[in-house]
């Protein structure tokens, strides 16, 4: 590794210069940290975007799934807590999970009961609104699974549907519980630990089916989405992300918009022989569903290994947005966001389903803040890319050609075996990782918690051994231009530009929620839980919690009409692994290079999971 040290000594002044240019064009940098941006109040709603017509207009005060609704807007119509009184928000009660990994899950609230699932060992708790425990369920998750999860042993939440709770365990079991009692209804094993598979995602329940996907893109796993019968737990269909059309469930109805996505068995032919079997494309992120078009939307993860020299070809269908029929899983369209990924830019981020005007015409779109630093606006019926603008400094690509849908990559930024590329922006966790954004129809803005990170990347020999990591890359991340590592951005999806943003010292690794009280909530890794004015970004309230926040805030209303806000604290995840895993940052490549950017996090927080519930 001596040579490894040497190549970091070469300065990348030219690249810094390039960045300077690209940043001066990006107005993200114009606001000093946490200062309220100047936006006239009268400008709202900011544009003519709306939630889809099929979305229930009436707020029921519940929060039944992490994304709040099928359109994944994470918007609550509750307004008891609003811009004027949020400063009086008080802690109602807390609940400790006694666990130290990252707590990324969204609490779920139905019928005056709060349900939470913890990271490994994936215990489920049902809590009354006075904080008392109704029941708990321990799934007996296999201990060994802890060694298979790339980026902390997290879980991103459970779903309530028809009196049942649905969630996944790290050791690849999909489980349904009776919500009232916590009784296990069924438990189905859907993945194989021995091959490096784990599960961390929150499922989506659609038309009597529980949709689940796997994690393990760093372990040479082959990605899939499976549908289970919500009554019996029986496996209904499996849609692989790689391989021949038959196994990707590409059939007669498949109509991709762009020519590069059309062809037979591309999921196998765009790989060296057999490599698609260990090629990644895992489905560990967010799913959305449009009941009108009857399509489920999701994106697939990075191809494996990270070192691109080991997988020449387009590597379909990794980093691909799929639209599928929930009934049989058949693919209707697909769009490969980036063929032959170079930087671990998983395409698993949330798809917000909105209706907004494009060239004067109201279109049904999905909006995806991608890891590659672009917010994609796509026609959700056809898969056409309508716009793709950058929301963070990007120096490895030069934008998307909207005619061909192809990303223009910068040639000399391609890493490979025994080659080092300095100053890649954004870094592997992307402009935004899994942390989901929210949309408020009252302001017309999308609220994105995200990162500002760059990295150096060095390609090495990758060796596939089933059940062990398959990466082949040494990475070291560092703060992007400006020196701050996180940003909270209010984004206008119609104009395709930022309206205001708040700089945060650490990556904003929490989710966010927007409410009809015109406030937005998010948490920081240095232990602040914050409420902002949704229109101006002005900080209205903050609360210091016990450990850094990487969870997802939710808000709901009890039967007496009292509004609550709930969030997990408990630092961890990929960004917080340096604390939750006790890593040694003298080696900057620890935690796949994230530790290098987070060396000072242990000075701001220690580990430990706790649920916080606030009310007026």
């Amino acid at each position, binding site marked *: 590794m001596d040579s490894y040290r040497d190549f970091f000594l070469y300065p990348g002044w030219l690249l810094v210069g390039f960045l300077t240019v690209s940043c001066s064009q990006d107005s993200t940098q114009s606001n000093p940290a946490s200062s309220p941006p100047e936006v006239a109040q009268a400008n709202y709603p900011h544009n003519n975007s709306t939630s889809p017509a099929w979305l229930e207009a009436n707020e029921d005060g519940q929060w039944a799934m992490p994304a709040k609704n099928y359109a994944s807007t994470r918007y609550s119509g509750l307004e008891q807590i609003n811009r004027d009184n949020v400063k009086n928000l008080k802690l109602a009660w807390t609940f400790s999970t006694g666990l130290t990994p990252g707590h990324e899950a969204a609490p779920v609230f139905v019928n005056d009961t709060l349900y939470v699932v913890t990271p490994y060992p994936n215990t489920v708790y049902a809590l009354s609104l006075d904080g008392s425990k109704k029941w708990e369920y321990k799934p007996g998750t296999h201990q060994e699974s802890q060694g298979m999860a790339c980026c902390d042993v997290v879980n991103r939440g459970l779903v309530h549907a028809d009196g049942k709770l649905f969630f996944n365990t790290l050791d690849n079991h999909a489980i349904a519980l009776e919500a009232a009692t916590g009784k296990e209804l069924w438990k189905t094993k859907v993945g194989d630990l021995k091959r490096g598979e784990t599960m961390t995602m929150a499922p989506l329940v659609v038309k009597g089916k529980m949709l689940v996907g796997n994690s393990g893109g760093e372990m040479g796993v082959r990605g899939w989405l499976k549908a289970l019968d919500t009554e019996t737990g029986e496996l209904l269909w499996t849609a692989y992300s790689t391989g021949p059309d038959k196994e990707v469930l590409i059939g007669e109805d498949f109509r991709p918009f762009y020519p590069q996505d059309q062809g037979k068995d591309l999921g196998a032919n765009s790989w060296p*022989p057999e490599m698609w079997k260990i090629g990644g494309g895992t489905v560990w992120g967010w799913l959305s569903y449009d009941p009108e078009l009857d399509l489920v939307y999701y994106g697939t993860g990075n191809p494996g290994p990270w070192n691109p020299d080991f997988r*020449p070809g387009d590597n379909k269908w990794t980093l691909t947005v799929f639209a599928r029929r929930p009934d049989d899983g058949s693919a209707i369209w697909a769009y490969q966001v980036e063929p032959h990924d170079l930087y671990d830019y998983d395409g698993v981020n949330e798809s917000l389903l909105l209706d907004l005007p494009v060239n004067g015409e109201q279109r049904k779109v999905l909006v995806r803040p991608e890891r590659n630093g672009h917010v994609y606006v796509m026609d959700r019926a056809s898969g056409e890319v309508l716009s793709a603008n950058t929301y963070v400094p990007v120096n490895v690509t030069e934008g998307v050609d909207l005619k061909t849908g192809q990303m223009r990559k910068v040639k000399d930024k391609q890493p490979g075996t*025994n080659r080092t590329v300095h100053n890649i922006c954004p870094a592997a966790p992307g402009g935004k990782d899994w942390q989901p954004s929210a949309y408020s129809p009252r302001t017309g803005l999308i609220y994105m918690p995200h990162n500002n990170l760059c990295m150096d990347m060095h390609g090495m020999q990758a060796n*596939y051994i089933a059940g062990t990591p398959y990466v082949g890359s040494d990475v070291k991340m560092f703060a992007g231009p400006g020196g701050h590592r996180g940003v909270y951005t209010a984004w206008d999806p119609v104009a395709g530009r930022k309206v205001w943003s708040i700089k945060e010292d650490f990556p904003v690794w929490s989710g966010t929620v927007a409410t009809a009280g015109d406030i937005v909530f998010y948490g920081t890794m240095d232990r602040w839980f914050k409420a902002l004015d949704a229109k101006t970004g002005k900080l209205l309230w903050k609360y210091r919690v016990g450990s850094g926040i990487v969870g997802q805030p939710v808000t709901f209303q009890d039967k007496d009409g009292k509004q609550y806000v709930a969030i997990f604290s408990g630092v961890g995840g990929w960004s917080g692994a340096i604390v939750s895993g006790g890593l040694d940052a003298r080696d900057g490549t620890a935690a796949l290079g994230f530790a290098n950017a987070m060396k000072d996090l242990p000075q701001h927080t220690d580990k430990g999971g706790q649920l916080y519930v606030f009310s007026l």
Partner: protein
Amino acid sequence: MSPPQEKCLPRKSLPPGIAAAGIWLICACSSTYASQSALQPGGPLAKAIADLFWGMVAIGGIILFIVLAMLAVALLRARSKAEPKPLTFTQSRNLVFVSGVVIPALILTVFVISSAAVNREIVAPMPEHALTIQVTGHQWWWEVDYLDTEGNHVAKTANEIRIPVGKPVRIALEASDVIHSFWIPQLNGKTDMVPGKRNLTWVKADRPGSYLGQCTEFCGKQHAKMAFTVDAVPEEEFDAWLQRQAQPAREPATENESKGRQVFLRSSCAMCHAIRGTSALASVAPDLTHIGSRKTLAAGTLENMPGTLSSWILSPQSFKPGSHMPATVLAGEDLGNLVEYLLSLE
């Protein structure tokens, strides 16, 4: 290199006869299966180099002859009684100018132009849709990938290259660890393989046959045992062969073979080697998907036969000290099944 010299070699130099015999033996052994002489060209590129060589030898020979002749004349004349007549200033200046500047410049110009012409031929751009073979140098073996005309990787082998006769073939060269150099003397000059870089060369064989290649940049302990063969075959035969190589490994046909596959998958073999079609897809050692169809083992070190394969698995260090392949301890029956399975993979 100096301290080990004293340990390894006797202080007294070898008698010249033994040394000469040793050299002859080494050279004789090195031409294992096929000729390795750049002077027996098998294709247009090597022929251009060989022609250049012979041309230079001829011109050099003529010059040597002239110089020797003049020396002889001078010596003979020095013995004669005749009083030497000194040259005038102009005469001596012209002599020095013509024989020391003009003639060498002419000769060197011919050499420079002809070698530049040969160089131009060797590095000429390839036809757009030539077959591409990617060769990666490892300590101490060759990884060989076949690409189709669209750049898709279709097959992977090791240590043996097969090309169609009469077709130009682009060779893309890479190295995984240290600098190696790729040389098929009968087909082209050598090209270095540098980690992190991709160098291109190309070959064309005019007649079918087996050509020997060798690493020609010292790359560590077993540099000498880093050879490969290039088999030029008729195009139809090549296409059929490539199609077979692109297939995953065949399923075991007998009980012993399927036991052998079990041994492969649960022992240390699967930590480094791949057999496509099984769960073993490691990539730090040669791909064994079609090992049964190869002629040699360990980059030309051993002939590929049941006996040598067993010995190689049990004790690679005896045949190729320093090789990265560790000794594998296997029960006799397991070893037999494993070898039977591996050799069935054709």
